[in-house]
Every structure is written in structure tokens, then in C-alpha cells.
């Protein structure tokens, strides 16, 4: 795999050239500041941008045109990277070596044309498509509770800090949504394309000059700020008393979400130690939580940890019987204490390292994770895959115990299942 960064007027191209894959994948990352309004707007753009386009105002004709190009796939998407919002426009298609000569250029050109030419009228997005999207998004916000696992996760984040970057309040989003119409959303879309920083990643066996000629002909911007950004979210305060919120529901299972904040992490801790900590505490079937809560006491079917070191956020998630809420919280707290005390088997350290390396090795088999990894290396100054495989072995038990001192339980959220299950 050969990586090359090419600086152009208005964008950078990151070309990962390899003949390992029969597909070509390309992602345009537009990076801009994260705030509630842009978050809601990007959510709408996910559907508005590529549901239909100027060339294909008919949805079915559009889908058929893509199918006819050997099932070319396009997507508009949104990502949240710490303090930044990212608008992705992506396309993947089968390399012309396996379809028809000339298709590489044709596919990229086609995708860019659709990306940049959504269906509009009277200086805004097509009103019907806009209203459809808005209604769907509204429904999603209103019915969040239908998915108790997601709902409890979002409620936890909301309770942890209403002003925090990652706080998500359906009511607040609904308020923002009310103020958005097809015209101001279109202005926002144009602003993203013009002003957000643009980094384009492409992976596959494809000719550099061919790609550049298409991109240059379609991307008409002159300026791009590619200085290194600080994506990290730092918390203004760490709670000294743990907040507990219990909300009733008519489901039969209770969802337990325990939220933690981390502070003052070093880059090494953020990249390596936080993974090790999460893996040993609740990463898999050998973790402390799995062993104590399920293995020894049969109190749950699932319990695991997840988190985002860039946001200094970490959590424990489980589904339990409402009669066992207190018991499980108490055991989970004990496990967290064990991490501080270093009261865990050294073999867990070795196993977690092997698992980390295996995941990277397997990811190398597929284009999308490799592309995402190169993007991560570029944006977040993450070590490359090869370096990470080596560096993970440097994490010591002391590192993990030190990290455990920097992680603080902040909020316990329980969506209590009140329906009598049996």
C-alpha cells in the first residue's frame, strides 16, 4: 500500500494506492465546527443531498442509474469528531479492471456531479424532499424511546452535562429543527462545500493523474485550511458527587448506563491505555464486569464498556432485571475500584494486546476500515497501523492503574423496566 498526500488549491487528496481490493472507495471529508445547529443541519443533509439530484429528480430513475453503473454506491453522512462536525460524501464502485474500461473516471465524475448538484428550486432545496426529510427526522426524535438501548445512552449523555458538546437532547434538537427550512438549509450546504476544510481520501488501484483531473474539474474552491486541529473535548468540571437518575418505562428489561469523564490524558493514554482499560474492565468475555456480573452471579446477558477518548467520555452499559439494579451498580463500582488497585490478572493485559493487534490485522483485509484508519492518522495524529501494533505492547500495568485515577464516575442513568417480564 502506497500512501501519498497531494496538496491542491482548495483541498488535499490522500491517495492510498493498492491492488489488494477490487473496489475503489472515495470519501470527501468536510470538517467544520460542532454546534447544535450544524449538527441538526447535517442530519438533514444526509438524506436531502442524495435522495434525488438535479440530473435525476426521480428517485427510482436515480437508483436505477446507480445500479446500471455496476451498482455504484453513494452516501452523504455525518460524523462527530470531538469538537468538530464532519460532512462526508462518499462513493464506492468496482474497479474498471472488473467492469469496463473508462468506468473509474466515469464513476468518480458521476458521483461528484451528483454530490454537488442536489435538486433545488427557488434558491432552496426541493421543498417536497426537504419536508419529507424533516418529517422523518422529527419522527426519529419523537420516537427515540422505542429503542431503549439507544435512548438510555443518549439520556445518560444529556444528564452528564446539558451544555456539553456531546449532550443530545431531543427537545432541543426539535427546537432547532423547527427553525430550519429548505432555503436556509441550502445556504448551509453551500457554506459547508465552500468554507469547511476539505480532505479527500481515496483507496484502490487507481491512477493519480486521472483522479486529480476529475477532482480539479469539479471542485472549484481556492482555499483550504489544513493546519492541525485540536479535536479534544475537555470538561469544564468533574462532578464530585455522583448524579443518579432513574426513569420509569413500560419495557420489561432495565437499562443501566454509567457515564464517566476522563481528564488530562496524555496522547499515549488516549491512544493506547484507554483501550486497554476499557478492554480489561468490560471489553469481552474475559473482562472483570462480564466475569463478576454475568459469570459469577448470572445477573445479566450483556455488560460492556464503550467510550470515546477524544471526547473524554467513557461508559458501562448493561441490560438487567429491575430487582437487581442496586446490586449491579455496586458490583460495577467494585470492578472500577479494582482497576485503580491493579487488582486484576496480568494475563488480561496480554490478551487485550493480542486482541488489539488482531483487529488491526483483520481490518487490513477491507478497504473501508483502511481508509478510515488513514483518515484518523491524518486528522488525529494517530500512529499508523504498523506503529500501533508495536506500541500497544508498551502499555504496562502501572499505566493502566494511572489511567484509572484519571477516570471519574459522573452519572448513573437507569431506564427502569417496570413491565412484569415473567
Amino acid at each position, binding site marked *: 500500500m502506497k500512501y501519498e498526500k497531494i496538496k491542491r488549491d482548495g483541498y488535499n487528496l490522500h491517495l492510498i494506492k493498492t491492488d489488494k481490493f477490487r473496489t475503489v472507495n472515495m470519501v470527501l471529508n468536510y470538517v467544520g465546527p460542532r454546534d447544535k445547529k450544524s449538527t441538526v443541519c447535517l442530519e438533514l443533509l444526509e438524506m436531502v443531498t442524495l435522495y434525488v439530484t438535479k440530473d435525476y429528480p426521480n428517485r427510482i430513475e436515480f437508483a436505477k442509474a446507480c445500479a446500471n453503473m455496476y451498482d455504484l454506491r453513494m452516501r452523504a453522512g455525518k460524523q462527530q469528531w470531538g469538537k468538530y462536525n464532519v460532512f462526508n460524501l462518499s462513493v464506492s464502485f*468496482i474497479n474498471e479492471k472488473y467492469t469496463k474500461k473508462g468506468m473509474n473516471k466515469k464513476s468518480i465524475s458521476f458521483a461528484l456531479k451528483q454530490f454537488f448538484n442536489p435538486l433545488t428550486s427557488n434558491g432552496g432545496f426541493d421543498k417536497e424532499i426537504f419536508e419529507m426529510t424533516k418529517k422523518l427526522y422529527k419522527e426519529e426524535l419523537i*420516537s427515540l424511546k422505542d429503542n431503549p438501548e439507544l435512548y438510555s445512552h443518549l439520556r445518560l449523555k444529556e444528564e452528564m452535562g446539558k451544555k456539553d458538546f456531546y449532550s443530545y437532547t431531543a427537545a432541543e434538537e426539535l427546537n432547532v429543527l423547527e427553525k430550519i427550512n429548505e432555503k436556509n438549509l441550502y445556504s448551509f450546504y453551500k457554506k459547508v462545500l465552500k468554507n469547511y476544510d476539505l480532505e479527500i481520501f481515496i483507496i484502490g488501484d487507481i491512477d493519480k493523474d486521472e483522479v486529480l483531473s476529475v477532482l480539479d474539474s469539479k471542485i472549484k474552491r481556492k482555499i483550504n485550511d489544513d493546519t492541525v486541529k485540536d479535536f479534544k473535548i475537555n470538561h469544564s468540571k468533574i462532578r464530585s458527587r455522583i448524579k443518579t437518575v432513574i426513569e420509569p418505562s413500560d419495557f420489561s428489561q432495565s437499562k443501566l448506563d454509567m457515564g464517566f469523564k476522563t481528564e488530562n490524558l496524555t496522547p499515549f493514554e488516549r491512544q493506547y491505555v484507554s483501550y486497554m482499560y476499557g478492554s480489561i474492565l468490560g471489553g469481552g468475555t474475559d473482562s472483570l464486569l462480564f466475569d463478576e456480573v454475568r459469570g459469577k452471579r448470572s445477573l445479566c446477558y450483556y455488560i460492556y464498556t464503550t467510550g470515546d477518548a477524544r471526547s473524554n467520555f467513557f461508559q458501562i452499559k448493561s441490560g438487567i432485571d429491575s430487582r437487581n439494579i442496586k446490586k449491579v451498580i455496586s458490583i460495577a463500582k467494585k470492578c472500577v475500584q479494582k482497576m485503580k488497585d491493579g487488582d486484576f490478572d496480568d494475563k488480561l493485559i496480554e*490478551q487485550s*494486546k493480542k486482541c488489539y493487534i*488482531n483487529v488491526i490485522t483483520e481490518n487490513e*483485509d477491507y478497504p473501508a476500515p483502511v481508509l478510515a484508519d488513514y483518515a484518523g492518522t491524518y486528522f488525529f495524529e494517530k500512529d499508523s497501523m504498523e506503529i500501533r501494533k508495536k506500541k500497544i505492547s508498551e502499555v504496562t500495568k502501572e499505566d493502566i492503574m494511572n489511567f484509572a485515577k484519571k477516570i471519574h464516575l459522573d452519572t448513573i442513568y437507569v431506564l427502569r423496566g417496570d413491565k412484569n417480564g415473567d
Partner: protein
Amino acid sequence: MEIKTFKKLDTKVYEETLENGLRIFIAPLKRNGISVSYTTLFGGKDISFIPEGSEEIYDCPPGVAHFLEHKMFDRKGENVFNFFNKSGTYNNAFTYKEKTKYIFQGPTNFEENLNFLLDYVATPTFTKTKVEKEKPIILEEARSNFDNPINMAFDTAMKNCFHENPYMFPIIGTFPSIEAISKEDIEMCYKTFYNPANMILVITGNVDPVDTLEIVKNNFSKRNYSSNKRGLKLKYDEPDSVAREYEEANMPITNEVFYLAYKINKKKLNMDLYKINHYLKCLFILKLGSLSLFNDEGLRSGELLGQLGSEIIDIDDHIIFGIYGEVKNATETLRKIQNELGDLSIEESDLELLKKSTLSNLILMNEQVTGTNNKIEEDVCKYGKVVYDVYDIIKGLSIKEYSELIKNMDLSNYTIAIAKNKKTS
């Protein structure tokens, strides 16, 4: 070993059947990863059977296959999770209606892992204490399943679709049936169905086929299987009609989730199942899915909250053509769906287009370690063999054949299940 090739897709598969009846499929792929699945043709629907050497029917409570899957992880000596965790290998197991599958995936430690997989599936230890200890865990898993509206709608539809076939029970069982499962039930199922003659082993990825076969053969050389006969699964005399046509399940949700199950007599279709599957997929995409006016109009009007889903399930003499989705008003949407399916004809150009896009994706097969493992495994479970000429079959699909199929297809037997909040509606 017999070397087979997915025609035009340059993916080779090495096939072998051991003396004990185990069927082995090895597909070497130029990737880092290795994916292994070890599957017994015994699943959630198999709750009554005649054990080998017996003449009497043995009845188990529903959920026994899934419970057994959980208990396969108990053994004397090293714990299964611990063993795989040592090398950072992913391992898991899944119970379906018709099969149970044990897997591991990881790029390292292949020989030890493979031996261990074959060992632990061959030597579980069941104890009464451990069976009892597992019950609260499975009940918790069941609670989270029953809180999921799409699961609820599916389970309700299957319950009502059948008169006789135990396909009607949820894979996980019911709260009382889970409580009722005993160590004896588990042992009896294990003894009857976890026999190499009833199992298949599929290995894909970075492996050498000859060495791999040696490992498997050596592993089995230390075991004696007295016979390669399987226990007898019962045949059910399942009528074409459904047991109940409509049911609502009360759930604390805002929108409505439905599952519409058409029960179709397979014999009357008079066509290869593989082709039926493809034609029905095309039918769904063009009438109700991504290439349909129904989908576009439904989204625009706000009736649909996302694209509908569909599946084709093969059960003895019937296939179930299932259609499901989350909507504002299920009754209204269902009326439109049935109206839409009043005319099953499609355009030839549309069929050709779908063929083209399916064919182009097939060439990615030799890049997908787990995907190819699943494909081989599913083929063998569904059709009894790997369908190597998939490329030619799809290329050969025709509008004429499609028209024959729909002419014989009777959509008059169906059941509808709707998960909704009865309090608010």
C-alpha cells in the same frame, strides 16, 4: 479432497467428507483473516425428535437448542472464552431456527484454535447446577428480545403462521419454557444432533487446505463415533392455511411495527429454491423496496419511516415470504402493500438491471473472509450443497421464468402481526 470452483469468480473450495460423515469446506483466500464456522443442523425448531436407537418421540421445551448453545461453553478444564481470549481471537455462537453455529475469527493461532473448537464442541460437560445458573442469564436475554418490536412482530407472525410446525416458537423459548428446560433435555439434544454426520465445518481465509484437512482428520482420529446416523427429525403435516390471520402485540412504542408473512406452498411453485429466492428478492425490490414507487411515495407522504425489509424462509413444504417495517399506521400501509402485490408483473429491463448489479458484486467474493464463509455455510444448510454456478444461475434468470413463477404463486394465505401501543391508539 475435491477441488471445486465458484465459476467465473476465481474462488476455490476444497471439499471433503470424513468417514464419520462430517462435511468440510475450505476456501483459501489471500487475506490476513481466518474465519471458521462449525454448524450442526439442529436449531430452535427442533424440539421433538426420535433419538437414535429409540422408537419414542422425545419432547423438549422450546428454547432448548439455544440453551444448549449457552451450555456448550461449560467444560472440564479450560473455559472456552478463556482459551480464545488468550490469543485475542473472537469467538461466539448463534442459534437459528434450523441450525446452531459455533465460530471463531482471527488471524493468528489457527491450528490450536481449530483443534480447540473441535474439542470443545465434542466434549461439553452438563451439570444441573450450571443449567440452573444459566436460567437468569437467558431470561435476561429473552427480556431484551421481547422488548424489541421487530422481534416481537416476527415471533407473533411465526406463532400464527403454523398449525403444527414448531417453527412457531421463538428460538429463545418463552419465559416458562426456559424455566422448564432440564439437564436431561440438553443432554438428549446434544447426543442426538451434535454428531459429525449432522454437522458441517467451513474454513475461509489465510489457510492451506491440505494442512487444514490434516488438522481436522487428526483431531477426529482420537474420537470414536459409533455410527454416523442422525436422530430423526419429525415431519409435520403442515396445511397451507395459517393458524391465525391477525394479531396485535402491545408494546410501549410510538410508531407501529408490522410483520406480514405469506405462507406459500413450495411444491406448487415447481422451481429450484435458489431461483425462487432470487426472483422473490427482485420482486420485493421492484414492488416495495429501493426501486419502487411504493417506497418513494410512502416516504414522501410520511407513512413509511424507512425502507421496508423482506426475507424468504424455507420450511419443509412451504416458504414464508416475510415483509416487515416500521410505519405510522400499519393497517393503512398493509392495505397498500397488498394492493401493490395484486399485480406481480415486472419489466424485463428492471430484472436485467438487478441481474447486472448482483453479478458485479459477486466478484468481491474472494475478498470477503467472513462473508464467503457465511455464503458457503448458508448454501449447504439451505440447499444441501454449495451453489458453485451462482454466476450462471443469475445470468440465466429470465422474465419468462419469472412469469411462470408468479403464475403459480398463491398469496392468499398470510398472517399479519402488528406491534403497537394499544394504550394510545
